[in-house]
């Protein structure tokens, strides 16, 4: 019973803490992209492409945390 409670807590913490970093990073990335577009509107297409690639990398970090949460969930089953 104890183990299960700790595992559930770990699952919540894994995704909760794991989302902080990517969240900050994505905020920075999008802010910079908007600023770049505002300064140079003709570069919008290129900036958007680069932003989405960067966002995919950042998002992947949060999703790794989610995968870990799923693995813990499967363990306690």
């Amino acid at each position, binding site marked *: 019973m104890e183990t299960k409670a700790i595992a559930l807590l770990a699952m919540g913490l894994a995704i909760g803490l794991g989302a902080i970093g990517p969240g900050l990073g994505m905020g920075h990335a999008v802010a910079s992209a908007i600023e770049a577009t505002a300064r140079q509107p003709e570069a919008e297409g290129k900036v958007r492409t680069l932003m*989405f*690639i960067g966002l*995919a990398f950042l998002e*992947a970090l949060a*999703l790794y945390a*989610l*995968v870990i949460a*799923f693995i813990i969930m499967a363990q306690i089953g």
Partner: protein
Amino acid sequence: MEISFGEHWIEHIGPLQVHVDTILTAWLAMAFLIIVALIIRFNLDRIPSKIQALAEMALDFIKNMATGQIGKDGRKHIALIASLFLFILTANLMGQLPWKLIHLKEGEFASPTNDINTTAALAIIVLIYYLGAGIMKKGLLGHIKHYFQPVWFMAPMNLLEDVTRPFSLALRLFANILAGEVIIMVLVALIPVGLPIPMVLFELFVAFIQAFIFAILAASYIGAVTSEEH
């Protein structure tokens, strides 16, 4: 209403475990693409019909993506990148169809990309392809030499990259699609009427973005190994 995910209709063929639902939906996506491609192919016209115009637009989009990442060699690799993009896009979008109406023995039909086996297979195809492209372009020695760029002690890092790249490709696509399905499932369990609709619309956007990211990363990996200067 219970929340369940990651369950598949498993059949055993010899020593192999087969996820029947994933294979059926993957074949359905492939059949759809092949039939649409054949229809467009046999109705080519100087004045494009609507569907032909759409296909030309998609080809232009993918061509720009490939040449943007790989350079002028990009046209050679367009077959793989276009196949990846169109297959993943179709597969992702298929997950939003009302599959729940069909009852299976176990699990249910969904996007084939919500199974890690599908995405891992796609990622391994990309790995083999870009290693092959590097060796074809620069020869085996030339390809090995690029691991020692820019300085020799970066070699372990560069080798490790060949492992982490397919891993991150596979996990990113799989986790995105699965997370989307789980979120919709949770919303349906909370309030079944109305609430899931914005999330479903967002999932349509995610389906496109993930297909785009997968294809553009594959293109940039090919571009990295085939580029002249480093």
